[in-house]
């Protein structure tokens, strides 16, 4: 372009002026703006809450696991080539306790063919899938549980028909507290209840067991004394080393046979994997966002139709097409951003409320709120683009003189 040296260049709009323009446009139509921002708010809130809740629940679970300790290892009999279950050697517990770093070894041995009932009058098929197991005498602390009521077995009661109930076993047998003389029916004899255990997060097997002493089990039920689960506590820095040696130490003749596991790591993986089922809710959030985007696009199309005279006036006052375009685009983005911010606030509030009620730490992943806001801005820009282009294309004379 030549000969334009005297032509005044169009000024750029300052950021503050742009923000003011966008807010004025929204303020004059508060209700409509609020309703169309609501769609985006709901979508963002759903996404933030879903991500926040799953993270918080994982954090809560991990805290619980950490409190229980991550240094528990368990050994269980594996399957042999024939497909039947191997037995753990009788000397395995003693062998394991000799490993450096191991400071506690406890065992349980499930007694096959013995079921437990509330009374002899219960039909024998109603086993409740409970098992009767022999236990060593310091099981609760090692296996990650403690007594809810009563006392655990001791050297004396281990010889007598006395049992301790796992949490689930107590519930299924209908026993919620211990009183003198309380008993359950197992293997054609009465067992007196000495105590009830707390739910065991790390070793669910203990939960559904009725525990008796080894001497009593061997004498009364003909139990062979082979443990079916060995609970091993190792010093924290030695856990990996112990984990590697445990198979060989348990069964030197067939080191690959025993199943060695670290229950806490399985639980951590489980807690983290819980997020997977949230895909459905995230999808719902995305649908809400889409509906919100259509709402924003709708209000912007209407705004362009309604505000022809404003557009014409601004053009007459010296606005370039670019000024008009950026004004409407900014308005759409601002609308979406307000919706997004409200959504993040609502999502965080919902997460905080629920997490607080559950006693979890409130964890909002950065990608949840940042992603929510970014999605809102992107949606606003996309939804506002066409209306803004339309507004900018409007000829000033048409906008001003054909109402």
């Amino acid at each position: 372009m030549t000969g334009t040296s005297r032509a005044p260049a169009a000024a750029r709009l300052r950021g503050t002026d742009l923000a003011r323009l966008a807010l004025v446009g929204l303020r004059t139509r508060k209700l409509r703006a609020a309703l169309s921002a609501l769609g985006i708010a709901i979508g963002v809130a759903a996404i933030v809450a879903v991500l926040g809740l799953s993270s918080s629940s994982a954090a809560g679970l991990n805290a619980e696991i950490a409190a229980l300790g991550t240094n528990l290892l368990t050994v269980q009999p594996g399957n042999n080539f024939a497909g039947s279950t191997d037995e753990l050697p009788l000397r395995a517990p003693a062998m394991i306790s000799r490993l450096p770093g191991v400071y506690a070894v406890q065992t349980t041995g499930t007694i096959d063919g013995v079921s437990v009932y509330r009374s002899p009058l219960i039909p024998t098929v109603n086993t409740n899938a409970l098992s009767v197991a022999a236990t060593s005498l310091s099981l609760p602390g090692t296996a990650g549980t403690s007594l809810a009521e009563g006392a655990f077995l001791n050297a004396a009661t281990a010889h007598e028909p006395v049992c301790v109930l796992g949490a689930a076993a107590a519930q299924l047998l209908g026993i919620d507290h211990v009183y003198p003389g309380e008993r359950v029916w197992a293997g054609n004899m009465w067992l007196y209840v000495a105590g009830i255990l707390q739910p065991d997060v790390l070793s669910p097997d203990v939960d559904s067991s009725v525990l008796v002493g080894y001497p009593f089990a061997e004498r009364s039920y003909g139990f062979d004394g082979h443990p079916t689960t060995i609970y091993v506590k190792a010093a924290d820095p030695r856990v990996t080393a112990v984990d590697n040696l445990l198979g060989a130490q348990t069964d030197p003749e067939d080191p690959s046979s025993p199943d060695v596991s670290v229950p806490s790591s399985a639980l951590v993986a489980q807690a983290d994997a819980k997020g997977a089922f949230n895909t459905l809710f995230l999808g719902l959030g995305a649908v809400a966002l889409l509906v919100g985007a259509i709402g924003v696009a709708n209000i912007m199309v209407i705004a362009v139709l309604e505000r022809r005279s404003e557009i014409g006036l601004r053009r007459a006052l010296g606005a370039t097409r670019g000024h008009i375009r950026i004004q409407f685009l900014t308005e759409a983005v601002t609308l979406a951003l307000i919706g997004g911010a409200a959504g993040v606030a609502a999502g965080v509030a919902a997460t905080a409320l629920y997490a607080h009620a559950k006693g979890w730490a409130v964890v909002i992943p950065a990608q949840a709120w940042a992603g929510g806001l970014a999605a809102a801005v992107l949606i606003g820009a996309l939804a506002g683009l066409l209306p803004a282009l339309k507004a900018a294309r409007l000829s000033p004379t048409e906008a001003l003189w054909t109402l």
Partner: protein
Amino acid sequence: MSSPARAAATARDGGEPGDGLVLDLDQVTKVYPGSPPVPALRGVNLAVAAGELVTVLGPSGSGKSTLLHLAGTLDRPTSGTVRITGLDVATLGDRALAGLRASQIGFVFQQFFLAEQASVLDNVADGLLYAGLGIAARRDSAAVALERVGLGHKLRARPTQLSGGERQRVAIARALAGSPAIVLADEPTGNLDQATGAAILDLLAELHTAGTTIIVVTHDEAVAARMHRQVRMLDGRIVSDTAGPGGER
């Protein structure tokens, strides 16, 4: 180039490029596309020098509104040349034209076009939004302009609280705020009663006396009668111009 207007303009502006003419239409035609195409202007020559108060008078359909659009650079001619402060509009792009409107042209409309939710002061200040001034400077200029139109005491009022005459004064203040080279008024008294309209015309005359160049487009003979120079239009042509035959080249 011997018209009194041009001579006066040249004298006043000291021979700047464009002969000191604020507005110069040269053989301008405008045909609106359609079937059949509608010719709105059929070769119009009009020169307005700085400081003039001109009325363009004509019945509806005479092309006076089209003339206003072209003079305000809101539209481009089909053929011919439009010069604003010596700049050929045809050589300017959208951004440059917008800049020209922001700094050199003030508009006054029949319907006022005021934002109801903004204060009088902000309505006027908004007129300077695209001239690149900060908000404080805009408000200062707006306050001065409102003082000039006699509304210095109603800066904080909303347009809805004002009478029609006052609203038109706000609109005039908005047009004046940027000290434009030319003010284009489209039927400024069209929505006002007789007495209020007369007061608005008094205001325009007063601004003219103070040196503002003003073009008023109207179909109202009574309005035109009060202006110094009257340009009559009919069927897309200028049929008379009291500036003398020199106004029509």
